């Protein structure tokens, strides 16, 4: 039996550069503000009762910056945004709910656990990343190759 993996759409330089930029952003936030650049935690902390006003303000400013950057990207390189993908309302609602509940339960996401947690050599983050990656691979396999949706 022959197994092979077909590689397509590999954007090596942009993805590596973008990743490095994200890493720099997280490093800035830690060096100056001593905070984890975990987007789910930042967002959740802003809207729930968890924190004091000071802890809410920096989160608000971070998210404003995030939105500004998103705006810049949408104007300068719109093909890099979700404009290039077909989105369906039901898909968005289900995935949004799962992402919200899941990141809240696990207290982190790709940035919180994946970028910051791994850098801290946190066992919780290592476990979380392994599980959400495997879960992601499995889900896409079912969606694309069992249910025949998308891809």
């Amino acid at each position, binding site marked *: 039996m022959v197994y092979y993996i077909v590689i397509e759409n590999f*954007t090596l330089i942009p993805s590596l550069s973008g990743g*490095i930029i994200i890493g720099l952003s997280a490093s800035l936030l830690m060096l*100056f503000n*001593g905070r984890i650049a975990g987007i789910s935690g930042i967002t959740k902390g802003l809207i729930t009762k968890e924190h004091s006003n000071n802890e809410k303000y920096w989160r608000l400013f971070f998210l404003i910056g995030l*939105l500004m950057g998103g705006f810049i*990207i949408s104007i300068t390189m719109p093909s890099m945004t979700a404009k290039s993908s077909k989105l369906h309302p039901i898909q968005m609602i289900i995935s949004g709910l799962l992402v919200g509940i899941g990141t809240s339960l696990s207290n982190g996401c790709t940035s919180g656990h994946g970028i910051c947690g791994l850098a801290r050599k946190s066992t919780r983050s290592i476990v979380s990343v392994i599980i959400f990656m495997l879960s992601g691979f499995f889900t896409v396999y079912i969606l694309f190759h069992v249910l025949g949706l998308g891809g």
Partner: protein
Amino acid sequence: MITKINLLSLFSGLIFSIGLGISGMMNPNKVQGFLDLSGRWDPSLALVMGGALLVTFFIYPLIIKRKEPIFEENFDLPKNKKIDKNLLIGSFLFGIGSAIGGLCPGPALANIAILNPNIILFVIAMLMGFFIHTIAVSYLLNKSIK
């Protein structure tokens, strides 16, 4: 409100989403392409996390060795080290969700800029997800206290 801390946060958020955009993370097709191992595999997102870790893996330990951050009084780092059910189940659900939508919290929020109602739906659903879990936790806590 316009403090060094908040301005730095704004700058960090700005750089973060520009990085997200350049890397391709804002495009659900690229996320799903990365997760599609047995189909047409797009390894790009491995380079995104790899690139980010190239920086943080080496810089974080140096930063955290300091007594304190530059602007803030203290480092605020997660103290929970237990691998509990919440971590396992939460990670599993997050994996499913981000695969179905091809979006993580950061890219979803950054995509608000494209003014697509589907993205707004995702963001609202995600915020509801935060609330649902948070409210469930405080409800269960109150029940156990009684």
